[in-house]
């Protein structure tokens, strides 16, 4: 069972580890990040997520079980942040591991769409006038020696 409501950063590599299974060849992991959207109050700097924890966890567990039944997913993750999440940080991770890619894509898509519709989580934007925060510079790649 990999369902999580956390005030701490969500780490995709940890979610990927929860999907590990040598019999499952198709793994799809989706991460949703907070965007610097323009609003009337300025540019979004963060989203504040709140939840009704008990019902939310129960619905998330139901979703996880549902993708196992509907899409044959051997493993699934349904993780959501709560509290303040800054622009660029991951607010949600869903993922599914299936025998092959097609059901894995379908299962992950189903998870994120259903999560947004049925899990009691709400967000409120915190915006500030001014330009959006600068984009991080891409890291320089190590020069190939080959």
């Amino acid at each position: 069972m990999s369902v999580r409501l956390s005030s701490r950063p969500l780490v995709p590599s940890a979610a990927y580890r929860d999907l590990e299974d040598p019999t499952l060849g198709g793994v799809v992991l989706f991460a949703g990040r907070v965007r610097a959207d323009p609003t009337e109050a300025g540019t979004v700097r963060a989203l504040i997520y709140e939840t009704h924890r008990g019902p939310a966890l129960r619905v998330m567990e139901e979703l996880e079980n549902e993708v196992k039944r509907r899409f044959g997913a051997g493993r699934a993750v349904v993780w959501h942040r709560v509290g303040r999440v800054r622009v660029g940080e991951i607010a949600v991770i869903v993922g599914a591991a299936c025998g092959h890619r097609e059901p894995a894509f379908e299962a992950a898509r189903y998870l994120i769409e259903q999560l947004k519709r049925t899990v009691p989580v709400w967000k409120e934007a915190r915006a500030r006038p001014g330009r959006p925060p600068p984009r991080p510079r891409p890291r320089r790649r190590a020069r190939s020696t080959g």
Partner: protein
Amino acid sequence: MTEPGSATRRATAAAGHARLLLFSTARTAVGKGALDWPVPAQGTPVRELLDELTRAHPALNAILAHSRIFHDGVPVFRLDERVRAGDELAVHPPYGGG
């Protein structure tokens, strides 16, 4: 915190309080995320309790029309079920996770 108007009106009959949880726009409309609401010994039907709530906070009216109600963490399908002292009733406006 107990609602003053409602507490006065039901003071003699109230056996205790139910906990009302208000999320997102419902919390904004009321100005608080939680209220202790007086209920009589025999309990109050969900419908009646929501009527009392909207009389005290008219801004909730439009929000409740699009909200789901949870009683002790379980979705309410029958508005005649009774809320008793110590129960929790939650107002869930439309969700917006992700």
